[in-house]
């Protein structure tokens, strides 16, 4: 099966947050409705970060430069990495990779340990308190399995998102970068072609990765690879100790305490 991907174009995005709303609607994720429930972010951004009930967030970054005030919008959601760090650490196998590249978190299997959040270089999975599970974008695998686009893509009024075979999305993304560069946005670059083994959610970063808050050259967190090394080391350590003690046991078979006073000898031996 061909690999599929979303292509998000920050240069076309008007930050209307329609995708954010549609994601919640399709996936039945509630919004907090209470007054001041969301911390004020100092911008038009809805909440500071993704949360247990929010799988997709449009981020706002403002920059005051020679052209005047410029906004860099970013679509923050799971990138569906080809080498997903989250999947590697999940102790129950709740995260799997579908043939089209989607990295799916099955909430019916998740035990809410949050290891995936710790491993993901972008800290994407968020803990969903009410259900004791972690939550993240599933690339609407329920829709795509029926030949439909992800809900966010379908709803985008600005045409800033597309969904299709990954190679076509990469080609379209690169073409757009060329256009942007020709228009003078010389820092424009495409994110996700090679990052984390190749992502299934690509990003046209109009102002360059950093301005859009994208991690350059992301890697699974060091600590998770350290932990991965520790597991075999633990096994070896325990095996060595048990083996050593086994040898000690064999050499001590038939041991009799010589310096024991008479009468207590029996007890010392038992």
């Amino acid at each position, binding site marked *: 099966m061909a690999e599929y991907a979303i292509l998000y174009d920050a240069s076309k995005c008007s930050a209307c947050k329609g995708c954010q709303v549609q994601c919640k609607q399709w996936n039945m994720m509630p919004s907090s409705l209470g007054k001041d429930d969301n911390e004020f972010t100092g911008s038009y951004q809805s909440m500071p970060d993704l949360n247990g009930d929010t799988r997709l967030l449009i981020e706002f970054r403002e920059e005051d430069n020679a052209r005047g005030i410029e906004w860099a919008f970013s679509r923050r959601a799971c990138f569906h990495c080809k080498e997903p760090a989250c999947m590697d650490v999940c102790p129950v196998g709740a995260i799997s990779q579908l043939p089209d590249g989607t990295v799916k978190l099955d909430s019916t299997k998740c*035990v809410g340990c949050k290891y995936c959040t710790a491993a993901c270089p972008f800290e994407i999975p968020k803990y969903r308190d009410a259900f004791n599970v972690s939550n993240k974008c599933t690339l609407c695998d329920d829709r795509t399995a029926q030949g439909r686009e992800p809900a966010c893509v379908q709803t985008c009024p600005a045409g800033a998102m597309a969904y299709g075979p990954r190679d076509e999305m990469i080609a379209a993304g690169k073409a757009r970068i060329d256009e942007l560069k020709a228009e003078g946005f010389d820092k424009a670059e495409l994110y996700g072609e090679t990052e984390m083994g190749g992502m299934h959610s690509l990003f046209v970063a109009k102002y360059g990765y950093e301005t859009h808050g994208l991690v350059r050259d992301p890697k699974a967190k060091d600590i998770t690879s350290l932990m991965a090394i520790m597991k075999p080391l633990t096994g070896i350590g325990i095996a060595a100790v048990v083996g050593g*003690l086994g040898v000690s046991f064999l050499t001590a078979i038939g041991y009799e305490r010589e310096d024991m006073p008479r009468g*207590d000898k029996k*007890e010392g031996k038992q």
Partner: protein
Amino acid sequence: MTRYIQRHSLMKRVIHGIVAVSCAVLIVSGFIVFVPVLGRAAGSDVVQVLRILHRVFAVSFIVAPLVGLIFAPKGFVHIMQNLFAKWDEDDKKFMMLFPKYLFAAKTTHMPKQHAVKSGQRLADLALIAASVLIAITGIVLWAGQYVTPEVFRISLLLHDVAFVLIAIIMCAHLYLGAGIFQPYRGLHRLMFGNGRVSEAEARYHWGHWAEEELASGKNVIEE
């Protein structure tokens, strides 16, 4: 008639028992989560039950020693004094001879020891340090949704480091303490029995201590 010395109080034995059972459950349940292949094979329902068990026994693992600390502060001070007792020549000699003793017990004569053997002092200290670390990081992991992913990550790593330490020390502790090692046969009764040690056993294991106890007679029982 045999003379016995009361080595461990009832409270100490009960606390040790609770901690031992908790530790065993924690090691097994933790191990299944620690090794993803095992957790995945067990399935998430089983892992979920294990995680709940892990928390229940984590509470007894942490609370039992704290109860001891509150109700028997003198006993705690005594344990600490023994652990940090200054090493004398016999202590050093014991430690030097111990590896040989493990593999050639029949031909190794060990020097007299005080209340806690020098080697055990080291092991106990490492065990206590690892236990404190695993308890603190465990609490942080439990409160995982309230800490940043960075704090969570570091706690997870330290929790695993402490786990490895404890698992390894436990192998040795079990081998010696439960008396699987022939020269230590019967020692399990000290913690899991009536807490008494016969004069001969006491002289063999903790010569200096036995002499002091027999001289003072305070904890000596004749039966």
